[in-house]
């Protein structure tokens, strides 16, 4: 043995590492040790191999890379002696996991060790196999393990049983091989073997319905008897835990009985007595006893209902719930959630206690309790429970507020008895935790408010009061600003007074104050500020006396660095200043928002991106799971869909010659090719276009600061204002004073669109023909024609398409899946595209075409962005 390569002893190395005062020092020591070990590895030094590996494991535990030691493990495992193998297997389990290729190399050694004469070596191999085996190894070594289930020493049998669990989990097909050996294991007296046998049996039952049936018929009686024996056994010091003989065995038996009894009345009946005995006789003053009771309750809940067992179980949970131990309360809440579906009334009895748990100081308990309260809510108790939760919102932890708010909002939305209650509760939530409220929630609130026409005045006054106190809650500010903009006159004049209200005096200036404060608040984000600007524009018409003041506030945003704000500010300023005659029409109150559309959008946005499954002509459904990933990024690219609104500002800026701050030139460039008149049309959407096209014009008042938020219902709010604008083209010309002699633009919005060649390659051409149904401008029908330019026949022809989120795509089955050569025939397929951003973004599509040519798979992909712009 070479004294120079021996390195340090394990103990000395650990001492040296522990003595390090800084992380840098520790790294230095570890580096040195690793270098020594690497040197020893390359020297192939046998004497200290196991010590080196032990050191490596320690280093590994500290989080340093140790892959160079992996081969050492294999060498040690291959060594003949027990000490080498012991440390080798330990290293194998520690340094490797089942996904490493190296592991395959150990299969042979494992096989030999599983057949070794020394039972402890067999034990080591079983342990390693059970902890890290992969599916391949499981398949290779299953016969050995199966044989070891009958080994003479029980300690090997129990290891083999657990190892089998891993094997059947990795390769479920092997399950049936283990069914018969398990029956023998279940008859064992040795606790370890019995314990592991029961676990294997449970696993097999979960994996295979046949195995479950078999065990249910063959073993239920026996297992009930085993449980009876364990429960009634006298004091056994070896297995005793706080006065109970082997609680682990109790629990595993109960778990297996649960699986056997579930859905089978006879089996459930046979375990009835013993369950009752366990539920009533088990001592509940120690954790072990409670663990058994907990398992027993779960079993009673899962098996078929027999006699009064469930009452017993619910009572145990009630006792648990009032326990002082937090652990017990936690599991009680957990189990009550399962009990709700079985016996709602019984759980409702504990409502008060559960509500207290929501306010517990322990985050885990709070979370469980909140989930449970959520399940317990119904029409009758929603008012009381929601009040409790909202009151608690005031004092709850910051990091719990998010969860709590989400649950309250969801409950209030789902179960509100009337609108006024809904609005009241939401205002409370917004005032308390407005910063935690999600966008959908306050969008939904606004939809409800517009629909409750008798409550407009009440709501805007409540909001006014609320915002005086909680001006720092972002979503409250948004809703308040929106409502003040819409219903400002009702606020000032106390219109629509309800009996329960106290009249308040708010002057027009007070109302403007609120919006001014909000727009100037440093925490306000772009959305809030943009909403403020719109509210101000609306107020300028509602409160003519404040018009000058509002103009000043609006003008202040002209210098904003945010393009959207700057643009809006300039636009609104010119409207206030020069266009009194159209202003009142422009800013009329929003029409009632359609709740159905809103909820439809909510679900629609979840369904997108639409990747379609196409039924090829043969009727085989082909799912487009793989292309999905690559299709989705269409939405991120936004290839041709630059927001048209941003160009408006640029253009208007030119137009009005106001250049207070520079605008990034890129945004101008992307729009450069578009004609100015077009942009203006978009901007004002007035002029000679026919009425059904008017909704295609993106609105002047659009809030969308970027493409992502454009699904918000406020878009639809602003869209809806457009039809209200019935200004004449002279008004437009008036706005354009100084624009010059450019002819009034006429947009060709005729129903006919020219067909396009959407995709063309050397072998294939795809043409799109468009048509629209009158009355639904958002929907485009596309007829796709595929033509084969080569002389060969394409078979298994499949066309797939994907679109970004703002589009919805429906693909109809193709006319055929065979495409004859030389252009002698064609496949046609109909597509229907719904553009939720109609008029703002044009359609884009990514396509993938696959077919077989001479039995070889061909795949063609492409992106179509040459759709006519206003589809």
């Amino acid at each position, binding site marked *: 043995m070479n004294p120079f390569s021996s390195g340090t002893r394990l*103990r000395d190395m*650990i001492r040296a590492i522990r003595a390090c005062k800084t992380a840098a020092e520790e790294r230095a020591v570890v580096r040195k040790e690793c270098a020594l070990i690497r040197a020893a590895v390359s020297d192939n030094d046998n004497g200290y191999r196991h010590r080196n590996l*032990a050191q490596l*494991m320690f280093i590994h*535990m*500290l989080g340093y*890379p140790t892959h160079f030691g992996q081969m050492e493990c294999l060498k040690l495992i291959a060594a003949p002696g*027990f*000490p080498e193998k*012991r*440390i080798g297997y*330990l290293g194998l*389990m520690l340094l490797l*996991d*089942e*996904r490493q290729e190296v592991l395959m190399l150990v299969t042979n050694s494992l096989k030999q060790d599983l057949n070794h004469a020394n039972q*402890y070596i067999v*034990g080591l191999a*079983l*342990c390693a196999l*059970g*902890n890290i085996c992969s599916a391949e190894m499981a398949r290779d070594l299953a016969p050995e393990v199966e044989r070891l289930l009958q080994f003479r020493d029980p*300690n090997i049998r129990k*290891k083999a049983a*657990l*190892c089998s*669990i*891993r094997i059947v989990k990795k390769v479920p097909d092997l399950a049936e091989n283990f069914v018969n050996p398990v029956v023998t294991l279940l008859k064992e007296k040795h*606790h*370890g073997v019995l*314990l*592991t046998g029961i*676990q294997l049996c449970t696993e097999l039952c979960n994996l295979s319905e046949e195995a479950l049936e078999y065990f249910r018929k063959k073993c239920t009686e026996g297992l009930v008897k085993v449980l009876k024996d364990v429960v009634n056994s006298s004091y056994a010091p*070896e*297995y005793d*835990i706080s006065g109970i003989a*082997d*609680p*682990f*065995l109790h*629990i595993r038996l109960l*778990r297996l009985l649960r699986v056997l009894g579930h859905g089978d009345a006879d089996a459930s009946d046979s375990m009835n007595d013993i369950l009752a005995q366990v539920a009533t006789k088990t001592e509940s003053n120690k*954790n*072990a006893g*409670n*663990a058994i009771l907990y*398992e027993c309750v*779960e079993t009673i809940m899962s098996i078929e209902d027999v006699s009064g067992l469930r009452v017993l179980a619910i009572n145990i949970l009630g006792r648990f719930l009032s326990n002082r131990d*937090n*652990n017990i*309360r*936690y*599991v009680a809440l*957990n189990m009550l959630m399962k009990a709700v579906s079985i016996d709602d009334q019984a759980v409702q009895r504990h409502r008060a206690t559960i509500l207290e748990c929501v306010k517990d*100081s*322990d*985050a*885990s*308990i709070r*979370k469980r309790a909140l989930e449970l309260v959520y399940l317990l809510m119904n029409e009758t108790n929603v008012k009381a429970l929601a009040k409790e939760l909202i009151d608690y919102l005031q004092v709850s932890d910051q990091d719990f507020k998010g969860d709590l708010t989400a649950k309250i909002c969801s409950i209030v939305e789902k179960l509100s008895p009337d609108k006024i209650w809904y609005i009241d509760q939401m205002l409370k939530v917004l005032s308390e935790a407005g910063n935690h409220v999600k966008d959908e929630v306050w969008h939904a609130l606004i939809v409800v408010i517009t629909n409750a026409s008798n409550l407009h005045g009440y709501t805007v006054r409540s909001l006014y009061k609320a915002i005086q106190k909680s001006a720092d809650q972002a979503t409250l500010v948004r809703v308040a600003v929106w409502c003040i903009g819409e219903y400002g006159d009702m606020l000032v004049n106390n219109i629509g007074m309800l009996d329960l209200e106290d009249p308040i005096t708010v002057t027009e200036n007070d109302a403007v104050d609120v919006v001014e404060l909000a727009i100037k608040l440093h925490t306000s984000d772009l959305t809030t500020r943009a909403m403020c600007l719109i509210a101000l524009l609306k107020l300028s018409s509602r409160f003519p006396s404040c018009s000058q003041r509002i103009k000043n506030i609006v003008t202040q945003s002209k210098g904003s660095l945010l393009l959207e704000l700057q643009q809006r500010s300039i636009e609104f300023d010119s409207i206030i200043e020069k266009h009194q005659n159209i202003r009142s029409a422009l800013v009329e109150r929003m029409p009632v928002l359609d709740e159905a559309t809103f909820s439809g959008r909510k679900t629609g946005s979840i369904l997108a991106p639409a990747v379609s499954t196409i039924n090829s002509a043969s009727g085989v459904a082909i799912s487009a799971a793989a292309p999905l990933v690559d299709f989705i990024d269409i939405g991120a690219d936004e290839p041709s869909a630059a927001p048209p609104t941003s160009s408006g500002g640029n253009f208007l800026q030119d137009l009005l010659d106001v250049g207070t701050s520079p605008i990034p030139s890129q945004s101008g460039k992307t729009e450069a090719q578009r004609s100015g008149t077009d942009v203006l049309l978009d901007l004002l959407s007035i002029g000679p276009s026919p009425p059904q096209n008017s909704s295609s014009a993106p609105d002047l008042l659009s809030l969308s600061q970027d493409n992502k938020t454009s699904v918000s219902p406020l878009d639809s709010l602003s869209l809806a204002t457009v039809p209200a604008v019935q200004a004449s083209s002279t008004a437009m010309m008036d706005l354009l004073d100084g624009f010059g002699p450019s002819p009034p633009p006429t947009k060709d919005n005729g129903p006919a669109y020219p067909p396009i060649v959407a995709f063309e390659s050397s072998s294939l051409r795809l043409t799109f023909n468009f048509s629209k149904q009158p009355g639904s401008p958002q929907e485009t029908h596309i007829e796709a024609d595929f033509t084969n330019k080569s002389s060969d026949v394409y078979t298994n022809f499949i066309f797939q398409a994907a679109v970004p989120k703002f589009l919805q795509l429906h693909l109809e089955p193709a006319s055929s899946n065979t495409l004859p050569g030389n252009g002698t025939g064609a496949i046609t397929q109909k597509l229907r595209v719904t553009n939720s951003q109609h008029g703002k973004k044009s359609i884009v599509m990514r396509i993938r075409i696959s077919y077989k040519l001479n039995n070889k798979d061909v795949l063609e992909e492409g992106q179509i962005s040459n759709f006519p712009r206003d589809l």
Partner: protein
Amino acid sequence: MIHFVLLISRQGKVRLTKWYSPYTQKERSKVIRELSGTILSRGPKLCNFVEWRGFKVVYKRYASLYFCMCINQEDNELEVLEIIHHYVEILDRYFGSVCELDLIFNFHKAYYILDEVLIAGELQESSKKTVARLVATQDSLVEAAKEEANSISNIIAQATK
């Protein structure tokens, strides 16, 4: 099923890790960081369960060490507390009033014992005595092999003197 076992000291140092479900090296260190952050910051009177990434982590503090086991949502948390205690008692019996230093310098022993208690994330043996006996037998096998090696080298040394 137990997905992994962690022993973390009060200072956040890892004393033992055992993974029964596949986690890459990167995920492992992330899991350890995340969990030691949540568990070490919890107060002493709170319950011993933490919900984490759809799993539950059951932990118990013994002196300066936190024993943590990660289980499925539907597993019995109270029983896992018993399993932790079971393991600690066996360690205690083996080392004779176990302390953190024992587990640092004899970390491999702690692993050997754990391998006799759990396999594939399931409980293997409910008798502490049996586990102690099995570990002791294997230790003596190692000792015997060492002595044999020593005696052989002694003989060689004497012979070549």
